[in-house]
């Protein structure tokens, strides 16, 4: 780890195992929902509560294979890359 990091450099915001643990925990909560709502719930939660650098770290891990994540967490997180899932004014858990 170097101290020459400056704004914009690709330094992880925090330890990856922490990010993965948190993401899988979120996945556990949304697991009982049907697939579409489950993915949307995970996406909304990450979008609303996670610092964008934490989301980037998660998405980079997914791009590299995402092996330690539950498949439905990967599906939900991937929705972050597509802004059509952004619903203005609504950031909560899955809607009916």
């Amino acid at each position, binding site marked *: 780890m170097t101290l020459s990091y400056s704004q914009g450099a690709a330094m992880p*915001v925090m330890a990856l195992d922490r990010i993965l643990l948190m993401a899988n925990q*979120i996945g*556990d*909560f949304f*697991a009982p*929902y049907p697939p579409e709502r489950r993915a949307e719930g995970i996406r909304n939660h990450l979008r609303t*509560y996670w*610092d964008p650098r934490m989301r980037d770290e998660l998405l980079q891990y997914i791009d590299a294979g995402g092996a330690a994540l539950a498949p439905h967490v990967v599906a939900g997180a991937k929705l972050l890359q597509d802004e059509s899932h952004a619903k203005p004014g609504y950031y909560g858990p899955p809607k009916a």
Partner: protein
Amino acid sequence: MPNPIKPEKSVITTCAYCGVGCGFKAETRGEKIVRMIPWKEGKANHGHSCIKGRFAYDYYNAPDRVLTPLIRSSINDPWKSVSWQEAFDYAASEFKRIQAKFGVKSIGAVSSSRCTNEEIFLTQKLARAVLGNNNIDNCARICHSPTQFGLTNTIGAGAASQHFDSILQADVIMVVGANPTEGHPVFGSMMKRRIREGAKLIVIDPRKTETVESAHCKADVHLAIRPGTNVAILDSIAHVIVREKLYNEAFVRARCEVKEFENWMALVGDDKYAPELIGPIANVDPADIRKVARMYAGGPNSTIYYGLGVTEHSQGSTGVMCLGNLGLSCGMLGREGVGVNPLRGQGNVQGGSCLGSWPHVFSGYRFVTDYATRSSFEAEWGVTLDAEPGLRLPNMLDAAVAGSFKGMYIMGEDPVQSDPNQHHVIAAMKSMECVVLHDLFLNETSKYAHVFFPGSSSLEKDGTFTNAERRVSRVRKVIEPLAGLQDWEITVKFMNAMGYNVSYSNPGEVLDEIARLSPNYSGMSFALIDRIGSAQWPCNVDAPEGTEVLHREKFPRANGLGTFMLTEYVPTSERTSDRYPFLLTTGRILTQYNVGTQTRRTPNSLWHPEDLLEINEQDAVACGVRDGDWVKMSSKFGQIELRARISERVNPGIVYTTFHHAKSKANAVTSDLSDWATNCPEYKVTAVDVVRINAPTEDASLDAERLEPAE
């Protein structure tokens, strides 16, 4: 001889200890406080008080109170006393240097629920408008953040549905993971009064607390659950309500999203949540689960009060949702005598939640990602604001360990003592380049701080607190601030030193700004509170003097309907093993308060001079531990030494301690797991081992190898 404690002056103010927020008359002689007299007109306490508010006020005058600002360039250097301006300028230059080198997001701020609404609001303004990011959090993160999340997602408002007096109309009182007779004693007395009048009491708590059985208080059913099984047990209660059709269908059809109710019935109605299956997991008698379900659903008025025993779990938010689901399914919301009510630990946890000291929402729980909301703040504050959520307190600490977070302004908090996994917190603190601590005393965190702003106690400043029943009351200056500035002034002057030009002539102007920017507070002002004593939010044009009971006609959600969340039980990954065979859970006692910063500096310590480890006799015999022996308690996170007390209050397999004393370092052993939704730490479940030792060792040598941050 004239009486040396005869008061000359009396000021009405609000107690700064627990979330009951009792009104007090603070009586002074000269510049000394000589008595605290409970205020008869106080709407939260009606003239009652507890041993903390009544007697534990002398901390303000403790000999180790810091009275001048301090700075140092390295945590290995001694502190140097400086003027206020030097301290502000030094902190500002360090923050600017760090941001220039590591980026705008490399610093953040944390406020405390011991601070006033105005100070909490100003701290979020400091982070968002001056530091230019949303790295702002509040200590409510580590206690009741799941309340905000769980209740908002079911009943629409992350706050108590009732006023305290509502309990006097309750027929069934269900207390979950709380111990009001010790933690919230004045409310606890009101609860006992209702129990004496015949109300039934259900307690769900791993420990046989005072609330389970003490004078004037005996639970009809006590579910002494295994720590970490809240969601399982609450789902099982819901299972009985669904299978035995005990729910209030008329209420659900009129007031709730029916489709979500059906989805919820399918989940909790599944055989896997039958009491006969959950009973053995939670270590309770299935017949008792059925009894609780029937009693709660039967009412006619059933009310839920809960505390950190629900929230401080890896499924804390899910547990709160379970309570919301229960209240909705049985129609126990929207009138007096019912409701779902969090009991807040600190005096202003509700205010801490309301006033935007969160990385994702502004005051009034409105998202930073929402353009319209953000624009209203930008217009008022005259700056462009960050549109993305910031780091939460545990994320800031993780980021500090990783090297991406370098500075922090901490107002009235002691994360090193109060946050979980102490070694991790210390590693985070040591890796920061500028920690600005704003407090009354040098505490555990000050060992790792570079700037110290000497704050004012709640007796030395003006402002407001919002108690656990949403009641906003005045905090009034009783004596002049000993270090010269009130806390709100310190934050404003620090903002000025950072180059942001703002001034207020008094904190009433800050409350006016809060009112302009927060719908539920839109009718609040010093003038209103001075006139009517206190007011519960929502306080607005529709309710100019506030609102006692929420949800009477509709729930504050977009469609006005309550909804049900799917609350699957997911066991915590913190498990007992051969190496760590006991489950540790933590709590507090009547005479002390939280990490003890205040109460430990008063004669209240005579009642509780040290933290003890409660252990069941059967376990004690197996470990060779006798009452009063020193023991070493270890977890995979660390180890501490304290004395054991043999107790019938805990079941075999469970041990319990308080966290009031810094020297016992209870959080050196607590787990680093946290709530899935909010990162609220799982304080209430840690697998530990207990071994008898002859005498305590020098604590400095403990775990030295884990104090350095891992690369």
